[in-house]
């Protein structure tokens, strides 16, 4: 999709994030999010079974893996949208177990969705304003008294305006979000997430369905988040994107974490190749899974 798209400036990679050998569950120098023994089953299927994982602070971490590896389920578990059967997980030293999704968001862990959730019949500006935290006017009783929340509302509007300019959506601010293109909705969702000044931004497939022209600016925006001191965790299938912007890569397969490392070394890990192609990738099985072959080709291309 985006084989010739690279960020405008060569991103500055963060290094020295881990302690000891880069292996699944390796300790990080400064983890922002840690998960221990998180397990989620749907009937007989174990969707997620993560022994230990730490997400490094102030870096861009990519979560990759073949379809059905449990990446989105893991996202849902971390953000309170789903409850694990067992396990502990902490954000900034605070336990997230039994914390409802909206409280997780208030702690500063904001997520986006794989299927974009722009609020279609609200204007772009209203979408943005909704993202701001701690609004006085969001209480039913105070909402009747405009003078109580007017000043804060103006501040929020100014902030939203600034972000919309940055994301080049300012010309659309009075339009319904439903009138935006798929890529613009992704931008809006990301901009909206930033309204709450999050410390950790979790993006579920930020590039899915985005045309190459917008991919460019999305990549730059994600790099921007890092330069502003935020931590980013994203799920992505596009290996070029992972390679170019991620500082750390976590590979999931069949619900487990099979490899971790910086983007260049992790791609050479035999466990990663197994995850994408199966352990018997060197024997001819007849029909091949085209998508996974695509991914591997991209990897090989990139290496050269």
């Amino acid at each position, binding site marked *: 999709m985006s084989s010739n798209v690279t960020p405008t400036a060569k991103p500055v990679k963060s290094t020295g994030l881990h302690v000891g050998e880069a292996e699944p569950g390796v300790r990080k120098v400064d983890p922002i999010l840690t998960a221990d023994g998180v397990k989620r089953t749907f009937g007989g299927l174990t969707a997620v079974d993560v022994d230990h994982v730490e997400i490094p602070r102030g870096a861009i971490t990519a979560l990759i893996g073949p379809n059905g590896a449990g990446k989105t389920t893991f996202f849902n578990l971390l*953000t309170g*949208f789903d409850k694990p059967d067992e396990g502990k997980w902490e954000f900034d030293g605070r336990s997230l177990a039994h914390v*409802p*999704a*909206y*409280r997780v*968001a*208030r702690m500063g862990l*904001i*997520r*986006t*969705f794989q299927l974009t*959730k*722009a*609020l*279609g*019949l*609200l204007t772009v500006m*209203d*979408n943005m*304003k*909704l*993202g701001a*935290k701690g*609004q*006085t*006017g*969001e*209480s*039913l009783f105070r*909402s*009747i008294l*405009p003078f109580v*929340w007017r000043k804060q*509302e103006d501040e929020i509007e100014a902030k939203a305006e600034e972000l919309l300019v940055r994301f080049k959506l300012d010309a659309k601010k009075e339009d*319904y979000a*439903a009138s935006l293109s798929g890529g613009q909705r992704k931008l809006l969702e990301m901009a*909206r*997430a930033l*309204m*709450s000044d999050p410390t950790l931004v979790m993006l579920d497939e930020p590039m899915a369905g985005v045309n190459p022209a917008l991919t460019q600016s999305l990549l730059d925006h994600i790099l921007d988040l890092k330069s502003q001191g935020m931590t980013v965790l994203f799920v992505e299938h596009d290996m070029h994107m992972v390679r170019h912007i991620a500082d750390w890569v976590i590979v999931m397969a069949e619900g487990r974490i099979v490899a971790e490392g910086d983007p260049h070394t992790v791609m050479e890990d035999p466990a990663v190749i197994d995850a994408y192609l199966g352990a018997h990738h060197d024997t001819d099985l007849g029909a091949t899974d085209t998508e996974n072959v695509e991914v591997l080709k991209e990897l090989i291309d990139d290496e050269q």
Partner: protein
Amino acid sequence: MIDWITIFSNAAQELISPTTAAYALAALGLAIHFGYTGLLNFGQAGFMALGAYGYAISTLSFGFPVWAAVLVAIGASVIFALILGIPTLRLRADYLAIVTIAAAEILRLIFTTNTFDAITGSATGLQGYKTGLAALNPIPPGTYGFGPFTYNAFDWWIRIVGWTLVVLFALLTWLIMRSPWGRVIKGIREDEDAVRALGKNVYSYKMQSLILGGVYGTFAGMIFIMPRAVVPANYQTSLTFFIYAILLLGGAATIFGPIVGSMIFWVLLSFFSGFVARAVEVGWFPFMTQVQAGQLRFILVGIAIMLIVIFRPQGIFGNKKELAFVK
């Protein structure tokens, strides 16, 4: 010959009748539930019944003054909203629809059963609760007005009270829907998971909306019983569907929609029933009896709802972009 003047003047009276005001208020409450929050409340008749019985029982059985009776009615519908909302608001929207329609029927059957005859008056209902409100009437006794709008002091008084309440609640709705609270509510209508991911307690907002719209319904119930007696048969499921018809006619996510919708609905209903009854009398519809003619107007209402949904899904005042039945 058909007496057109009577038909038209009867229809015109519905414009400002307390019943129209009551339906407008109930529809406004439903606009908060359905139009703004996306809650499928099919039990608005239940909230109205609680308003009617809450007011009448506390006046008749306990001798409460007007203000206390109103508070009892509000309290009853807040409790009712909590009972409905606590188990269902965490679930998908359809469950609320099922639970509300059943709960409203349960209420009606409780009010109908003979077991509580001493308090509820069972199927015959209650009357004689109007003295409290009548005592507050500042209009001196007499008959006022012109043409079809000629009423006695009490009739004017309940019209003034009813429509004042409608105006006040419309103003309140306008205020809260342009505030950040209204923004969250509309966001929930669009996608509650997205709003949750932005740190809003969706469950609490849905509960607030359910209670608020329910309180509107309660006030509607109290206005509704002023020109008539409290009879349980008035609070059937069809009452909820008439209110939905009004809401959809006017526009679900609008303020004027439910009010004007209620006026149009009642004027047309009165016109149709007057016309059909007279037409059968003079033999224009030889295939129809008087009893059948009485039911024909409801068939016409059904057809009208279908036509709205098909040809103008956003209602009269609605913005086509902002709300339609099918997304």
